[in-house]
């Protein structure tokens, strides 16, 4: 495969607490390729949002990147100054968030906010040019009557429209990479389908890469090429989207698949994962999933299993995988 657009290497993001540094992202390595979508899936507290904020260098105090590199081409974003990073945000990498209402400024018009990134990266653009480019951006995300919407305020728009405006803002400077953090979680299911459809179309038009963060395996199946499953700050399984559903390996992935009710089968009981996610300041020894894992043995508690290649292109951080071989033995 060609050189990746973005390569995350051994990224570790910690939060300082009175009890010492607590890792939210703990040694994550991932690649994102041009024109492709990388999905990151996991539950609350797995570190997926902190990971994306780390790439954008938006982790706020007391959090900081403690180790690792975020390579965009030849540049390591983790070592850029804030001024240099501002040149990257919006132009090279843009981000959209879960809650389109709180991410938009209620006192500025839609048009003002959309053109903000253009003004920042191209301060000499005239007002007429800004308006044209802003309306163009609204057209691109299929907003009806964009000339009128340009002068409206966020409260005048529906949830789906607001998320379209967010996407228009993010794409205003044609970034190479879009990070979408739970972009449809707050939306109704028919509106979610519209937004996912739009993201797919825009990706086909522009060739941008997408990092899609979600807790929803349905959205993963619908949207992504490659997938990383995260648990407690670590990637526990990494493969292409097809293999994740057809050949799931990590017990946590299995538990997630078993927990979602499916429309296409009838099961008496859902296969719930017992227990809860461990707090990052009190992680269990060894594999972090071991207290919840039905396949755990003593060696699972002894050391943290590294990601290993189980078949080419499919990595899993579990000494018991594939589970059928371990159970039979």
């Amino acid at each position: 495969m060609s050189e990746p657009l973005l390569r995350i290497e051994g990224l570790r993001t910690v939060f300082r607490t009175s009890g010492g540094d607590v890792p939210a992202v703990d040694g994550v390595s991932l690649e994102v390729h041009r024109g492709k979508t990388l999905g990151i899936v996991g539950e609350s507290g797995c570190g997926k949002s902190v990971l994306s904020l780390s790439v954008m260098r938006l982790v706020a105090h007391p959090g900081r990147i403690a180790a690792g590199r975020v390579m965009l081409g030849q540049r390591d974003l983790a070592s850029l100054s804030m001024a240099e990073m501002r040149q990257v945000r919006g132009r090279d990498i843009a981000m959209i968030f879960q809650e389109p209402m709180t991410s938009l400024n209620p006192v500025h018009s839609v048009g003002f906010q959309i053109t903000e990134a253009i003004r920042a990266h191209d301060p000499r653009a005239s007002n007429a040019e800004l308006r044209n480019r802003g309306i163009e951006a609204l057209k691109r995300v299929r907003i009806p009557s964009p000339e009128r919407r340009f002068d409206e305020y966020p409260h005048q728009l529906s949830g789906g429209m607001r998320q379209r405006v967010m996407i228009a803002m993010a794409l205003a400077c044609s970034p190479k990479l879009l990070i979408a953090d739970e972009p449809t979680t707050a939306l109704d299911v028919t509106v979610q389908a519209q937004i996912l459809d739009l993201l797919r179309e825009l990706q086909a038009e522009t060739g941008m890469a997408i990092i899609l963060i979600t807790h929803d395996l349905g959205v993963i199946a619908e949207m992504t090429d490659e997938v990383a499953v995260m648990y407690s700050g670590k990637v526990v399984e990494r493969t292409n989207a097809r293999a994740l559903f057809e050949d799931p390996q990590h017990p946590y992935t299995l538990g997630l698949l078993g927990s979602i009710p499916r429309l296409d089968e009838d099961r008496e009981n859902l296969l719930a994962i017992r227990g809860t996610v461990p707090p990052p300041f009190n992680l269990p020894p060894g594999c972090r999933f071991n207290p919840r894992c039905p396949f755990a043995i003593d060696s699972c508690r002894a050391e943290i299993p590294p990601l290993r290649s189980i078949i080419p292109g499919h990595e899993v951080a579990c000494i018991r995988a594939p589970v059928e071989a371990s159970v039979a033995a």
Partner: protein
Amino acid sequence: MSVLLEVENLAKHYPVRKGAILARQVGLVRAVDGVSFTLNRGETLALVGESGCGKSTTARLVLRLIEPTTGAVKFKGTDITTLDGATLKGFRRNAQIVFQDPYASLNPRYTVGQTISEPMEVHNIGDAASRRARVEELLKLVGLAPYHAQRYGHEFSGGQRQRIGIARALAVEPDLVVCDEPVSALDVSIQAQVVNLLRDLQRRLGLAYLFIAHDLAVVKHVADRIAVMYLGRIVEIGEKRALFSNPRHPYTRALLAAIPHPDPSRKGRVTPLGGDVPSPMNIPPGCRFHTRCPYAQDICRQQDPVLKDGVACHLADQLPPAGVDFAGGLAPNAAKRLALYAEAAARS
């Protein structure tokens, strides 16, 4: 099966006023606009729909937490919309609710024991000692431990808090539990735990659930019958299996088709429904779904369809068979390993 709850032509309209002193009415939000259904003992009826369809308002009307504009709610044959005093309190003992947000619905100053025993105190059930014993029994019933009674709500995770909310609802041995999006705020692995618990409790205690949800996959798992709501009305109601295998209303079809399916081979096969839900202050004339319906004709723009044989659509009998296909299921390797997972989980 005997009928527990009968809802007849229920409506809740909120006037919209403008002006501070001489306020005048400038509009009417028709949140619930003529809803009828029945619920049998021991049965689960799910009300599903998107934001603003009136499902939560309907739930609150059924419990008379808010007063209806018109319509009747008959519980065991008695219209509860006219009850007051002791008779209303008697109804409240029989009908309880579990709320969506387990973080907001527990009093932070109460211990778990106080939270669970409060409904028993309100209804003068037992003495202090027997209530304490009942709290312990309830905690065990929902999968918590008796010593949790001394702790406070904030010490628990979301899933555990929802178990506490369920224990509180069950404390007075109700026949009806209204579950208002009980798992929507929870992570998927925890969602499954709570869904399994609700089903298990229903089987053991013979509870009837009115289950409010927006997630059709969860609903498919818990419900016996499903009512699909759109802009304050039920547009389709039916037995779960029939509704999923042969959805008749175009909105039901669109809802089913829009669910992202955990199977990459069907990636991008669905054309999503266009547009947004209209405002309940400005409901379209005729069929309220016609502005988004791909099949809409003149009759749909003029005449409001009535709910007949479980569906409110002029064209229900003329539509092509529903294109939603749920064949597939888990891939063989996934199914094999999930079975091993379940086996290992049962052993340990």
